[in-house]
């Protein structure tokens, strides 16, 4: 058994001496993940990363009660699990391909379903940023143009929102233009303007879950 395998085994032993969720266990599991990554089976299938993530989840949950050091190295144990997951994904993909006539495949081998494909958002629905622009420009309650940095009545939420939204003016440029230090600008933006933006997002039903 190689030096790396000995080291991996030591880390696993150490991890399992501590309770789940404890920093010591987390640290040692991290060390194992870092090193054993390069020893794992690789494939170029589109679903490979999903299989690998499932393997890491399995590793963290089961290494302390499912792994028998006498039966082989940590890498061997993980590879066995990974290959089973890859097999499951492969079988699943074959089933879907054979049953969907309109399935297309892009260069990566990722099956794209014509019907469920990523819809072009620019079609009938007004883009979110245009709605934000309209809302900020209209400023129906006058709140956005009223809120300003103390001592700088021209630096309002309305101005900052539109500048950040559309032309992505950097804080540095805004700071030079208005003569306000960056921390003051960003602090004002965060405390006064962002909560209004957040509320607008929620009222429009935009918050994702």
């Amino acid at each position, binding site marked *: 058994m190689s030096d790396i395998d000995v080291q991996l085994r030591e880390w696993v032993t150490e991890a399992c001496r501590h309770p789940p969720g404890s920093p010591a266990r*987390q640290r040692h599991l991290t060390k194992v993940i*870092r090193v054993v990554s390069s020893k794992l089976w690789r494939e170029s299938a589109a679903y490979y990363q999903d299989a690998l993530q499932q393997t890491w989840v399995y590793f963290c949950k089961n290494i302390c009660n499912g792994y028998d050091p006498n039966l082989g190295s940590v890498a061997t144990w993980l590879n066995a699990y990974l290959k089973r997951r890859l097999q499951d994904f492969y079988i699943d993909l074959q089933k879907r391909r054979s049953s969907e006539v309109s399935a297309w495949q892009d260069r990566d081998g990722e099956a794209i379903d014509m019907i469920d494909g990523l819809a072009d958002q620019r079609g009938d629905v007004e883009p979110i940023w245009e709605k934000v622009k309209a809302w900020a420009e209209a400023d129906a309650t006058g709140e956005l143009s009223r809120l300003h940095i103390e001592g700088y009545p021209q630096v309002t939420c309305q101005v900052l929102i539109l500048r950040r939204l559309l032309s992505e003016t950097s804080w540095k440029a805004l700071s030079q233009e208005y003569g306000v*230090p960056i921390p003051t600008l960003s*602090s004002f933006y965060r405390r006064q303007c962002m909560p209004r933006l957040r509320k607008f997002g929620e009222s429009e039903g935009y918050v994702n879950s």
Partner: protein
Amino acid sequence: MTHDTYDALTLPITQGARRTALEFSQHQPTPTKADRVRLNTLAVLVTHDYLQLMDIPTDLASGDSWNPVMQACSDVADLELPGLGRLECRPVLPTVDRCPVPAETWEDRVGYVVVQVDELAHEAQILGFVPAVTDEELQLSELRSPEALLDHLYELRQAQTVLPNAMLARPGETAGQVLTNLSNWLNTALQQGQAAIESGWQTVEQVLNAGELSPAYAFRRGGTTVRRAKRLALGEVVVALVVDLRQAAEAQMEIRLQLHPIAADARLPNGLQLSVLDSSDAVVIDATATGAEDFLELQIDGAPGEPFRVEVRFNSSLETQAFVI
């Protein structure tokens, strides 16, 4: 690339992550913004996946990074950790040696994780983290390892104590107010040489531009001191509450509290009041600004374990910070 990649942790970018990132990016007005939102989302998701492996609870949906309006109007990649605070997850591309940190993320974060995203290979590397940033650019050489992030989050959890209802809640106040444990600041400073930054508390340099500190502030005393600051907003007035902690004797801590205006060359407004209250709600000491002061200062002494509260009032606004020594 100058950054030492030995400590980097490689994790996969799942199909679900790729889809979500792409979908979010399509709501943006410009290609540059679309790229940024896509990368920010990937960084958040990879960090989320890693923390899930480590059994650390996360709440993806409550971050600004998950709100399309906030994605359009600010460059944020925050990940909410229930009970702890928000972690900022900044993406970088391979071959860079520094990471931009936008000013709107300088506050209200418990740490900053840097994630190197390799979209072609569908994988990402958690390069490391820092508990706080002091600039718009973070040098990758300053990063601590992912293991240090785990320790940091653990310390944050330990440092926040919630007292039962009977001790702190007043009528109308929500019970279970979070207490900041000052002894922990000192303990961690002694152990690590660099104090852990707790949720909401940052270095003075982060909260105030160096040029804004009045000369009297620069006075240093002997012994181990820890100094931390937090921005408080009272209506339109934004101030920095600076807490300066010194161990005067075995069971004696000297605590200096200062209030500074955030705006450069400003005075504290007339009527702004700083008070310290003890556990029976009696005012121990207070100070009120007349409009002529650069800052207000109060000093108290106490033994570890003693609770006290700091109140800052201006007109009808009130900000409270609860501490235990």
